[in-house]
């Protein structure tokens, strides 16, 4: 019998076998598969092939299930079979290189936007992008609530330079399709999900986390641009002047953002 392989080589062969998309039988025909099989004990049934297959089968199913739970609206919109195909293709291109399964979907939006399924489901890239933003908001720490006293402490000169601090969970998204509607329906029965939008309907979305969960809301163009400008650090007076909005409108935007906990302080 040949001398035992170094641990690193053995792990490399096995990782190659277990991540082969075509399954364990195809993998065992490869050089890595042939080498790996040689070192699997067959003192008792089942065979080495069947023992290796337990891990091969579990690999894809585990990652499919994980991505399904992190992209529920995508899964619902595509249906089980299409979602499975998308993820199989994705994993062929992007294996996991992180200890945290939550990182696995980080490239799914970019990948799916270029995937053949996006011809039938043109909103696919936008929906993946939205769900990735939702996941990011879920795993971002919030700042403490706004102390209203910070406003009263500002001198008129300070007001000229004051910029708002927003909650770190807040992100803004420009989409070509109204994917926020699909996201809102993510837990409804899949039958109702078949959506047949043919022409883009661009929209602006805000994603953030409140006390309970992640929120996704549609914003008007002017409010979106003003919020975007403020998040970039533009001073309050400059952002308000550039918005072109009436004072009442500005007031209502700021009241809503404060009420939703998006504004966390002044800088």
């Amino acid at each position, binding site marked *: *019998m040949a001398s*035992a*392989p*170094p*641990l*690193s080589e*053995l*792990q*490399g062969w*096995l*990782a190659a076998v*277990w*991540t082969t998309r075509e399954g364990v039988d195809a993998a065992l025909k490869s050089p890595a598969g042939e080498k790996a099989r*040689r*070192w*699997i*004990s067959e*003192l*008792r049934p*089942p065979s*080495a092939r*069947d*023992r*290796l297959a*337990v*891990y091969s089968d*579990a*690999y894809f199913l*585990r*990652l499919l299930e*994980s991505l399904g739970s992190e992209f529920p609206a995508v899964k619902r919109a595509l249906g089980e079979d299409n979602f499975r195909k998308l993820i199989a293709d994705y994993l062929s291109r992007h*294996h*996991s*290189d*992180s*200890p*945290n*399964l*939550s*990182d696995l979907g*980080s490239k799914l939006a970019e990948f799916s936007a270029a995937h053949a399924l996006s011809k039938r489901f043109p909103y696919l890239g936008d929906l993946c992008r939205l769900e990735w933003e939702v*996941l*990011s*908001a*879920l*795993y*971002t*720490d919030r700042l403490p609530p706004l102390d209203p006293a910070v406003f009263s402490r500002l001198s008129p000169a300070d007001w000229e330079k004051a910029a708002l601090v927003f909650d770190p*969970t807040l992100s803004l998204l420009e989409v070509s399709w109204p994917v926020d509607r699909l996201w809102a329906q993510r837990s409804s029965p899949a039958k109702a999900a078949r959506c047949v939008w043919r022409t883009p309907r661009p929209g602006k979305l805000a994603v953030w*986390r409140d006390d309970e*969960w*992640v929120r996704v809301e549609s914003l008007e163009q002017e409010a979106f641009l003003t919020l975007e400008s403020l998040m970039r650090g533009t001073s309050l007076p400059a952002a308000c002047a550039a918005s072109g909005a009436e004072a009442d409108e500005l007031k209502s935007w700021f009241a809503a953002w404060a009420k939703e906990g998006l504004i966390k302080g002044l800088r």
Partner: protein
Amino acid sequence: MQKRAVSGVGLGLRSVHYDHVLSRRPAVPWFEVISENFMGPRGGSGGRPLEVLAKVRREYPVALHGVSLSIGSTDPLDFDYLKKLESLASVIEPWIVTDHLCWTGAHGKNLHDLLPLPYTEEAARHVAGRIEKVQDAIGRSIAIENVSSYLSYKHDEMAEWEFIARIVKTTGCGVLLDVNNIHVSAINHGFDGEEYLAGIPVAAVRQMHLAGYSEENGFLIDTHDHPVSDPVWKLYAAAVRRFGAVPTLIEWDEHIPSFARLQKEAAKAKEVQDGVCAAAV
């Protein structure tokens, strides 16, 4: 956060039961959580899950149980991951930090599975060296859990329990003894579960796990989706006889039942502990 001595039978805390636990504060001696669920993706942090865990921790002792340490991998240790683990542990102040005696990936690919190691001198030295580095990096000792396995290697040089004993002796780490995993592997590989128990150093066992498995043509799969089986209860009683009533966990991760059903399973484990301990007096 008050530090309390931990004993009895704890439960795995899963998101479906967050509301129940926070609103009803059920009588459970401690909870175990999966460490990675509270770390967030790259560039992220604990976020909402960690907020919930911090609330739970105010009421209960918590064990941090990892699935991604990959202590047996030949890839370099992931120090970003260890930094996150250390940070999580400093916030939660767990009564124990555990992970699995396995590898989860190699050559840059993470398979997110608990993959079996060959039980060789080379692997024992490799794992022991990494455990020491991990314990240094996170500033606390860890306990390693035996995994269920579906294959073994022709070039194994020792039994799994001898491999564990070797690592414990070298590193001083603890053992999280998964009694269900011993039974699953015993059936799949044809060894005696009680012989396994006899080979584990008594003082090293800090925690035990109990769970349910599935059976496919006589081959057992560790699915955590059933009640604890009769042979595992029997082996658990033998484990309590050898190691004492160490804190034990009921794991149930798929088809998760009601909280009351989990408590019933935990009560059964406590009965076994109490029965064995009473008989020993």
